[in-house]
């Protein structure tokens, strides 16, 4: 499995609320450029975004995460990885769901797409973070 990009909760919220074209454009790029790369949706980021969304916007999030034959894959949070993710989240209050996204971007050597670039860059190198903020 080749995960090229990871989306955190902030990116998932922007996509689901239609507040920015950025994630849609990233999906278009991954679809166009090769037939095998995927976009990872960390399970904890999905849960954080799902909780924060209105029912109408939730449908977009669920479609994004569950579309078979698409370009996205939900990344599970397993075993003791949960401890590291919880500690990352505890260090970044107010950025719920970013811990799992940082963890997966690091584990998979993927680029983290986020609107919380400042928090992400405290844990990842500058070139590992695609800051979607305008």
């Amino acid at each position: 499995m080749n995960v090229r990009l990871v989306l955190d909760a902030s990116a998932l919220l922007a996509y689901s609320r239609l507040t920015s074209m950025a994630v849609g454009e990233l999906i278009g790029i991954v679809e166009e450029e090769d037939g095998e790369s995927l976009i990872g949706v960390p399970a904890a980021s999905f849960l954080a975004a799902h909780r924060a969304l209105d029912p109408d916007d939730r449908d977009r999030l669920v479609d994004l995460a569950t579309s078979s034959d698409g370009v996205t894959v939900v990344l599970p949070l397993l075993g003791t990885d949960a401890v590291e993710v919880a500690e990352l989240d505890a260090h970044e209050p107010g950025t719920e769901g970013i811990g799992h996204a940082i963890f997966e971007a690091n584990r998979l050597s993927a680029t983290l797409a986020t609107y919380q670039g400042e928090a992400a860059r405290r844990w990842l190198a500058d070139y590992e973070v695609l800051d979607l903020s305008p």
Partner: protein
Amino acid sequence: MTRRFSISLPDDVAAELDRVENASAFIADCIRQRRRRDTVRKMLADAGYEITEEGIERMRRRLHELEGRRRAHKLEERRRGRAAS
């Protein structure tokens, strides 16, 4: 499981198949990629997105720039590791 098909193709497409080692695998790969493209475009359209080529190009440049820096960093790490050993 596989199924056997007899298909007709235009000359230019057939010529492409003459060049590949495994025509069945090539066609299966093309169909999977087409299915993936259709799925993604339908999902974006259903969500209400109208993605423009300009937007994709702008984002592609940003993503490629980051990925290029990541590759350069990895190469540098490898070079340092070799120099240290």
